[in-house]
């Protein structure tokens, strides 16, 4: 309950309502620029998350369970819950395969008391997206059954190799579940098969979901979230994109150690003269990839060779996941000073604001406190420094580096000192 308490020590709902336009006040010169930039930066900072390197079970297998019961017809999310869920799920599929290229996904729908398989567990994002699009025509109906959906997910995840994670992500709009049997037994069987469940609630917390999440995640119930609004919904869904950290307890349980996977790196061939049959769709195509083990032709990667069951990927697919394993250090905000040694952002060359004298800073802080009655203040230096190379960046470049690029521009561009001992990776 602690995190529910607001800045004044009371609960958020006891607080006086803050209108967004009250925060924006003109400064002495009648300009809004200073306050607007500090507000923008404060918002961006929230997106910056703490990065601690830890081992993640990168090869993931996930079943996405979508509620399509009558409660999904509610219009509290526009245009209604079902259609926003489907469009967010499509975004999720794209992002999931972008971040976890060698993972697999399946989609199950809960509707009128039964669980229906919409998209079989596979590594092809396009087929999932097509299947989700087809769901738009389906009208939400009846009650959901968590037990049926969980049993089906369990069946889908049962054959998954031990080196992959087994995850279920449930988007749950209802407040009830109509089950044919005892759901507690199903939850216990999930724990035994090491399936981890994550739930996103659209209405309110449901005790059975909380219990299910807690039991399948070694007592950790932080993976059960109930949405506040559309943005929060998206945020919760995108949190599921990042691979789960392997918990210490699960590490202890899988004591024998980690897995080594045999994989093939096919070479691309081009056939300009005459097409040949591919082994995945049995269609005539020009060019493709050739499995190094059985020499059959495949249209797209990553996939499992339909002929010899060898997992086929490109080395670039592996490289896409490396940033999870070697995360970029969080930049440190430079404290407010009178003079700074940097005038421009190293990345985008944008000019930083000038320094503020201590007296001015005092005045500004006092004014902010008087305005908002809050302890936190918005005055920033707008400079964020990499702890390794000591180069300053603007907030936009900081966010860009951590979210999109995953490189530190300073560390990669300046090599005055002898290079740091880095991991020697010579892969092509």
């Amino acid at each position, binding site marked *: 309950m602690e995190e529910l308490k607001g800045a004044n020590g009371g609960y958020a709902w006891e607080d006086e309502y803050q209108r967004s336009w009250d925060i924006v006040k003109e400064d002495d010169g009648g300009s809004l620029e200073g306050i607007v930039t500090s507000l923008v930066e404060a918002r961006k900072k929230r997106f910056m998350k703490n990065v601690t390197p830890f*081992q993640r*079970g*990168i090869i993931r297998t996930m079943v996405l369970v979508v509620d399509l019961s009558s409660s999904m017809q509610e219009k509290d999310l526009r245009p209604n819950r079902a259609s926003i869920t489907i469009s967010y799920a499509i975004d999720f599929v794209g992002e999931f395969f972008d971040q976890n290229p060698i993972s697999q996904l399946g989609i199950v729908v809960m509707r009128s008391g039964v669980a229906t398989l919409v998209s079989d567990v596979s590594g092809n994002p396009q087929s999932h997206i097509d299947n989700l699009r087809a769901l738009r025509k389906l009208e939400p109906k009846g009650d959901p059954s968590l037990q049926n959906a969980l049993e089906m997910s369990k069946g889908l995840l049962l054959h998954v190799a*031990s*080196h992959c994670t087994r995850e279920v992500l449930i988007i749950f709009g209802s407040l009830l579940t109509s089950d044919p049997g005892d759901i507690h037994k199903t939850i216990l069987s999930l724990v035994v098969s090491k399936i981890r469940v994550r739930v996103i609630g659209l209405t309110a917390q449901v005790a059975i979901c909380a219990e299910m999440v807690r039991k399948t995640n070694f007592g950790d119930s932080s993976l059960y979230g109930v949405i506040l609004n559309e943005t929060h919904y998206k945020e919760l869904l995108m949190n599921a994109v990042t691979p789960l950290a392997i918990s210490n307890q699960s590490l202890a349980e*899988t004591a*024998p*150690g*980690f*897995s*080594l*996977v*045999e*994989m093939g*790196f096919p*070479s*691309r*061939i*081009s056939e*300009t003269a005459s097409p040949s049959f591919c082994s995945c769709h049995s269609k005539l195509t020009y*060019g493709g990839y050739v499995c190094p083990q059985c020499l059959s032709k495949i249209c797209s990667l990553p996939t499992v060779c339909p002929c010899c069951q*060898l997992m086929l990927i*490109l*080395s*670039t697919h*592996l*490289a*896409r996941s*490396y*940033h999870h*394993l*070697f995360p970029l250090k969080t930049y440190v905000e430079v404290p407010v000073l009178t003079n700074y040694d940097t*005038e*421009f952002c*190293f*990345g*985008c*060359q*944008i000019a930083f604001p000038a320094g503020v004298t201590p007296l001015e800073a005092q005045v500004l802080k006092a004014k902010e406190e008087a305005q908002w009655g809050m302890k936190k203040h918005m005055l920033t230096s707008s400079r964020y420094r990499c702890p390794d190379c000591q180069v300053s960046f603007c907030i*936009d*470049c900081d966010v*860009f*580096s951590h979210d*999109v*690029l*995953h*490189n530190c*521009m*300073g560390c*990669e*561009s*300046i*090599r*005055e000192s002898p*290079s740091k001992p*880095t*991991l020697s*990776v010579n*892969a*092509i």
Partner: protein
Amino acid sequence: MDAIAESVFDNTMPHAAVDDTPSHLSVILETSAAGWLAIPQTTLKQVSEALLVALNAHLASNTSNQVSVLASGVQRSEFLFPTPEDTHAKHHNGTSTLVSSKLYSLFRHVDEEVLHRLDAHIQTEGNGCDKGTLAGGTSMALAYIRRCQAETAALKARILIISITDDSAIPYIPVMNCIFAAQKMKTSIDVCQLGPASSFLQQAADATGGVYMDVKHPQGLIQYLTTAFFVDTSLRPFMVLPSQNNVDFRASCFVTGGVVERGYVCGVCLCILKDVPQRNFCPVCGSRFDDLVISKLRRGPVVTRKKKRKTDALQTPLTPAAEQPEAVTDD
């Protein structure tokens, strides 16, 4: 006469409907001294001359077009154009001797700035480390493009790398991160390779829809830069571009460095290994592998000799005669 004139006029009409979206061209020039020494056919001076022509041509093709130029040496990557001092109106007062003062002011501005800064960059370059800073330069170019796209709506962007070094000077993970970031930003990376072929840069061009060319005759660089590398990204699907059919996608072993077609991947750090490690530990991240999995992988193919009786039993259901007794037992 009128008829002819009219038809000519009609024919030119469709050209009025050309796409007016401004485009940003970011050029990254490698300046490693050792790299330039290894290419006897051309010099940095000739290449920068050709580059300035290409930059001016890009600026001339649309009034809102933008350029940025970065130098990437062995020790540091930095912006040649635009530079913060430059954008904050600290112009040279027309005393430059490098560029004719009669040139169109925008061209002159870019040309002077690039040449001055390039000169300064080369003066300060010292001996570098084994890995160059190309990835850093590309990262900075992407960050600058991000800013320009935030400031100007609907700005197309592409990156041109004038490379002189091979894969040994490029750090793998940072350059791959750049490729993925460029893919996300829908920015294509063109590579003009003057030195030995580089498979990383080939992959960069392939993944982002760019052009990769091994320039065999650097004397004609102007022509390469203003033809193959000059095509706008939106027009590329309709043009016959110098294509690269065989991109080297094979991986290389993290330990031995050998080319791998069929290898083993560590489940924790995803490093690629050619063989099953001798000890049960990942040589990169040190995690312990499951003994059972390792022994399964070590076990070679075994030809099992089938017992004669078993094969008989398998064959029987195939013959129609054998089906009848089965049906009898069911009853």
